[in-house]
């Protein structure tokens, strides 16, 4: 029998709910984080991509002769030759499987190009400089075709067709919602119709995309290092497009320097870099440059809506016709985002009659890529503008119109008109906290005082409902995930999970959960993510799923291991198993306080499997999947499915002062009250929320991707695409409200995505409020100074 100690047990509080330091934070701060560009393999070569300079054209000839003679060049690949070796890239979400249209997407264009920036050829050379120099020597001869850049224009009967096998430029056409909107509008005291345009913006992570692929000619296996969100799906995708067996591909996710949806797979360069390695027999690296990264669109929509409300502020019906410009088709998931704009439309309001019609149209712009918010942001923007317009039309306070229409706190789960089943929430509670944080009444008084001095202070409110942790039937958008918890015989724990982190810190949160569930200190735990050979098959990160699915499955696996530790520890302490607790690295007899260190118990399981550990299967490892509740794919009587287990919510308030002479907006204050249910790590949730809020502020004020008449990106640097900097921002004030979800392991809901649409709407509403004396109506975002001045002019000339 191993010696039983009664050493002092260092008791600390539970890890869950604490702001535990970020895993690997010291590594990042000291510049030792290993990102994809830090990986170097022997004999590695570099790729450069030749991109179309025209928006729409047939490719007549690709002349690679001069490029092939350029120094250091190993291979110049054209679309035709790539197509001989690689098939189409499978879609992350196939539009055809959602009632839309399919088209082949290739890693290099074949036959014609459909946007400026589309890859048409690739060069592999000994150095990146040689590759880029040779890429400049590839001559592509085009026969120009008419092009279309605007979504409405693309719907015109005589619009140029991007995909000639389609009858039009519509990738998806769908209707959403229930109720009799016509009757509701007929009965309404106030009916407003208007148009809202949400311009194209982008996510701009600090680290662009990058891949390093290494084909082994001897054993015919492929190893791929990448800055990725979904390594297992990428493995499947590359296996499909290159005709390889999935088991011959090993995907390793490097540390990711931000992603926000951009690094979900489906990009042409993923297949391309793997193919280039296979064809050259050498490791090939490609790192996206900033101008390439700027091509990725995040959102672009036009909403033409009609809303009806009663005199007391109740909104009784909404009709919305949405045209979403997704650019060219990509195999990435971006095209599907507007689907969520329509589905999320009525947000957290009890609007009984909602009808949305969505056209997702293709144009000769670069593709949209999945982006934080995933279309939900645009729904919030429109809905929060609608609520403000109703308040204005009825002469009511916008805060009170929100309160009037909120789903009451006691009515959850609540089925919305578009079929979402909101798990829980307390939306009026969010509003109360936000108004208190603002000192709303005093603020309105100050606003009135300043107006007498000719100054324009504005307050904007915006509610946001964030469906999270999606499951899309028949796709790799999965609502569950898988985690393995493995304890060594020294008690150290490695957690291998199918979820990945884009840098947000779900690895830390998962370690916190395992620490509490398994009863070991955080410092004993290592979390491994993103490696398809080491981690169980999972789905990576998107849709705020990391802590719901990764955390849930880690908890189940940790509990299995803990049960064995408890059983064997109890035997060592000679007490019944229900009289021990496992915590902080010890198994402790509740009765007399004697303890045995977990490492000794773990060693006993392995070395005394036929003695002390006879009662357990001697493997301190468990793999478990976790499926949260509330997902329902059985269509209801109206054909609606319910793909989200949790719905986070938040209320934003922005205070601005607008300079009516220049149109400049100064953001003076920003409050967000956030409810993501049980919080595993407040500091990490807050960090994500700050980032999302700033992303929304940027998309509301200054961020706009501009294309010239030939579809070429004009805003391709941080001097022409304006992200907010610290000096543009006030100290953002965050408050929490905790309304646990009944459908997840800890009552936690998705976090990290909420903030974009609400912040965008709050600043837009604040600008309109500031300029109320002029009577302006905000109909577009972003609102840089020229747009604000134009609003004033428009109101003055009315």
């Amino acid at each position, binding site marked *: 029998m191993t010696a039983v100690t009664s050493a002092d047990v260092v008791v600390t509080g539970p890890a869950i709910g604490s702001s535990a330091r970020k895993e690997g934070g010291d590594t990042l701060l000291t510049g030792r984080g290993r990102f994809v560009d830090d990986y170097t393999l022997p004999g590695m070569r570099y790729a450069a991509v030749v991109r179309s300079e025209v928006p729409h054209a047939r490719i007549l000839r690709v002349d690679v002769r001069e490029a092939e003679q350029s120094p250091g060049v190993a291979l110049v690949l054209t679309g035709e030759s790539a197509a001989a070796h690689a098939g189409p890239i499978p879609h992350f979400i196939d539009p055809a499987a959602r009632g839309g249209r399919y088209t082949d997407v290739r890693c290099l264009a074949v036959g014609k190009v459909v946007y400026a920036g589309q890859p048409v050829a690739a060069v592999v050379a000994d150095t*990146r*400089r040689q590759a*880029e*120099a040779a890429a*400049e020597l590839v001559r592509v001869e085009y026969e120009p075709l008419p092009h279309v850049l605007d979504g409405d224009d693309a719907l015109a009967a005589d619009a140029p067709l991007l995909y000639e096998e389609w009858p039009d430029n519509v990738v998806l056409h769908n209707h959403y919602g229930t109720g009799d909107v016509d009757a509701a509008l007929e009965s309404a005291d106030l009916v407003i119709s208007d148009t809202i345009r949400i311009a194209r913006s982008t996510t701009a992570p600090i680290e662009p995309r990058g891949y390093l692929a290494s084909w082994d000619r001897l054993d015919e296996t492929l190893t791929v290092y990448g800055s990725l969100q979904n390594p297992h799906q990428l493995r499947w995708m590359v296996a499909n497009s290159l005709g390889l067996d999935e088991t011959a591909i090993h995907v390793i996710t490097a540390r990711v320097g931000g992603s926000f949806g951009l690094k979900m797979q489906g990009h042409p360069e993923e297949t391309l870099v793997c193919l280039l390695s296979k064809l050259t027999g050498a490791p090939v690296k490609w790192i996206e440059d900033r*101008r390439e990264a700027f091509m990725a669109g995040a959102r672009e929509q036009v909403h033409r809506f009609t809303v009806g409300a009663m005199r007391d502020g109740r909104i009784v019906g909404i009709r919305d016709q949405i045209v979403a410009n997704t650019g060219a088709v990509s195999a990435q998931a971006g095209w599907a985002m507007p689907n969520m704009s329509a589905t999320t439309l009525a947000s957290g309001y009890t609007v009984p009659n909602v009808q949305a019609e969505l056209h997702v149209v293709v144009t000769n712009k670069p593709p949209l890529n999945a982006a934080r918010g995933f279309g939900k942001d645009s729904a919030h923007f429109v809905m929060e503008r609608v609520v403000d317009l109703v308040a204005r039309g009825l002469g009511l306070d916008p805060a009170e119109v929100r309160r009037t229409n909120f789903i009451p706190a006691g009515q959850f789960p609540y089925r919305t008109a578009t079929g979402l089943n909101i798990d829980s929430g307390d939306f009026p509670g969010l509003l109360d906290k936000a108004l208190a944080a603002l000192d709303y009444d005093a603020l309105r008084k100050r606003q009135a005082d300043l107006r007498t001095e000719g100054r324009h202070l504005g307050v904007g409110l915006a509610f946001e409902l964030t469906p999270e942790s999606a499951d899309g039937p028949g796709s790799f958008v999965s609502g569950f995930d898988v985690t393995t918890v493995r304890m060594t015989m020294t008690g150290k724990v490695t957690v291998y999970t199918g979820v990945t982190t884009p840098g947000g810190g779900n690895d830390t949160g998962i370690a916190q959960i395992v620490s509490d569930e398994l009863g070991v200190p955080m410092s004993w735990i290592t979390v491994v993510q993103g490696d398809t050979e080491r981690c169980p098959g999972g789905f990576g990160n998107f849709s705020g799923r990391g802590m719901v699915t990764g955390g849930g499955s880690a908890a189940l696996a940790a509990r299995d291991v803990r049960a064995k530790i408890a059983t064997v520890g109890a035997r060592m302490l000679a007490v019944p198993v229900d009289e021990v607790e496992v915590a902080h690295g010890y198994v402790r007899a509740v009765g007399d306080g004697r303890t045995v260190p977990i490492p000794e118990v773990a060693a006993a399981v392995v070395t005394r499997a036929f003695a002390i550990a006879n009662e357990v299967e001697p493997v301190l490892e468990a793999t478990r999947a976790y499926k949260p509740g509330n997902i329902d794919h059985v269509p209801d009587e109206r054909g609606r499915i319910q793909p989200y287990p949790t719905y986070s919510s938040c209320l934003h308030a922005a205070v601005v002062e607008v300079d009516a*002479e*220049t*149109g*400049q907006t100064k953001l003076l204050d920003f409050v967000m009250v956030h409810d993501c249910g049980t919080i595993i790590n407040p500091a990490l949730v807050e960090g994500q929320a700050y980032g999302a809020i700033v992303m929304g502020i940027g998309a509301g*004020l*200054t961020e706009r991707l*501009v294309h010239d008449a030939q579809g070429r990106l*004009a*805003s391709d*640097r*941080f*001097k*022409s695409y*304006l*992200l*907010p*900097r*610290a*000096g*543009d921002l006030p100290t953002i004030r965050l408050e929490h409200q905790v309304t646990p979800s009944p459908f997840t392991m800890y009552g936690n809901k998705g976090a990290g995505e909420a903030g974009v649409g609400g912040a965008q709407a709050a600043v837009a509403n604040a600008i309109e409020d500031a300029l109320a004396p002029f009577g302006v109506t905000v109909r577009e975002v972003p609102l*840089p*100074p*020229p747009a604000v*001045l134009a609003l004033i002019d428009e109101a003055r000339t009315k």
Partner: protein
Amino acid sequence: MITKDFTYHAPTGLDGVVSVLAEAAGDAVVLGGGTMLIPDMTHGRTRADVVVDLSRAGLSGIAPGDGEVVVGATTTYADVLADDRAPALVPLLRVMAGGVTGGPQIRNKGTVGGSASYANPSSEVPACLVALGARMRLASASGTREVEALDFFTGAFATARRPDEVLAALVLPALTGTSVGYTKLKHAESSWPIATAACVPGPDGALRVALGAVAATPLLVTVDRPDAGVADPAWRAHVREVVDAAVTEPWSDVLADGEYRRRVAPVAAARSIARALETGGEEETP
């Protein structure tokens, strides 16, 4: 990546610089702080056979002289900000340098002479030099000449500098007025300037205002003093009239079209005057 090969020279004196430029016969580019040239070369917008780096040429520093201040071409924004004499000698450049965006990286590398030579319409240095009545000292193998700032800026990204010349220094007449005023309008911290106005009152009290970023080259206007105060609508209308007459071809770029610049140029002008008259301007952060 800069894909084109080039020859790199870093002469240790002005003589070396001008002899390289003479030999290169127009195929050379001059490297100051590199904040514009290096990105332009990286993106293939500028391709050159010869790069002449001024960093060792001894062209940095602020030197007061008889009735003038000589600012070396490679004096960085950080140099201006760090110089204790700057508030007295070059108050306008100091205020401008304090508002240069891009953080320490840009302020430590970017040079006053480099910005002038690049002549980006959406930049601050050209209009400041015009406001100050600066003379641009140009050196070549055949000697040195001075060109008035107003004549130096000939168009967007174009100056009177010949390819065999280097901008060696900026000669600023000693300030005679009471104070200067500076206003910069931009969309966000990261934005290029959209409209700038530098007001340098003359010894006679005339209010000279140089407008930057609103046209291809700086525009110099003179406006009446606001006898009834800077808020007087009549005086504001006068400023607008004067500025409107000057802004015949407003600059347009991806951030702001010409119409917006035309709208806000008089606002910037009036505010710069207000600052010059009311606050002394020196401590004003734009």
